[in-house]
């Protein structure tokens, strides 16, 4: 009995020590400004009432909106340099893409941040009934589908790879032709 109690005490002490060490490592990295040290869920809006989505770059803007959460989305697509505007009902491709971006899992902070023109990045905003509960993220969308999307988050220093499909983002640039409803 005494031996069993001794083993239990040792095990408990080991667990506590290991837990403390893990938290300590995380804490040290965070304090040092290195951000999260492992893949983690940055946000999950899959169960929240998204009523609008804005994807904006200097040459392409997709704004999806709905008047109520039980209604389908409509889409407006603007290409400023081509002076064109499209409008359509959102289709299955949009629904699939929206399902992807309502959950964001990011990886380890990049040791070497991407350089380049900040206007070349894409702004993604998910809007809820109460705007203050939405999420806004800046994204670098690579040309090659094999490369990862990189994100910057407001209030969190650094750049992080994101577990989203790069090719899914390239599809939305087709506008209503791909993202719209086609009977």
């Amino acid at each position: 009995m005494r031996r069993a109690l001794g083993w239990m005490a040792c095990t408990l002490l080991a667990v506590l020590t290991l837990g403390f060490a893990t938290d300590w490592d995380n804490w040290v990295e965070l304090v040092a400004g290195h951000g999260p040290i492992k893949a983690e869920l940055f946000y999950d809006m899959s169960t929240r009432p998204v009523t609008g989505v804005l994807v904006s770059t200097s040459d392409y803007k997709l704004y999806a909106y709905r008047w109520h959460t039980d209604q389908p989305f409509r889409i407006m697509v603007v290409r400023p340099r081509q002076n064109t505007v499209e409008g359509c009902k959102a289709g299955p491709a949009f629904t699939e893409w929206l399902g992807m971006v309502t959950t964001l899992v990011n990886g380890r902070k990049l040791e070497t941040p991407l350089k380049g023109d900040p206007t070349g990045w894409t702004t993604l905003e998910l809007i809820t009934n109460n705007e203050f509960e939405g999420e806004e993220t800046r994204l670098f969308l690579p040309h090659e589908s094999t490369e990862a999307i990189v994100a910057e988050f407001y209030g969190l220093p650094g750049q992080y790879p994101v577990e989203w499909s790069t090719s899914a983002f390239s599809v939305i640039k087709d506008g209503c032709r791909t993202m719209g409803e086609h009977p």
Partner: protein
Amino acid sequence: MREVLVSTSNQRLLAFRTDPGEVFEIVIARRDRNELERCKAGAGFARFLEAASSIFVVKKVEAVVETDTKDWVTVETWDTSTNPGRELRLRAPNAGEPRTIMQWWLYDQYVVELDDGFWSNVTSGCAELGISVEMGKAP
């Protein structure tokens, strides 16, 4: 400022420009029609933006009002930096409260004063906000 998004219960307005020296382009979706309205911004839009940028706080609201009613308007603006958009939520004056109420984050509300150009132009469409009108295509 490079981009503006205005949301009301019956209208969505997206205004944008690719250079700070350019005139804003405006695209408007309305709840009661499928076609998009489109125009270049004019004096009405400039007055609307100015009104949304110059708000004076009068007092804090003691008993906060509901925030999911149809008389709230959200204006989000993005400047040319990499900062996130700035959100402004205002409730239109009504018989019970003849002044505008501003939501401040999740909990606080304030009675505010702002130029009449805000409420007179917010849902007026290209007729008041723009300098020319053409219709976008939508199925």
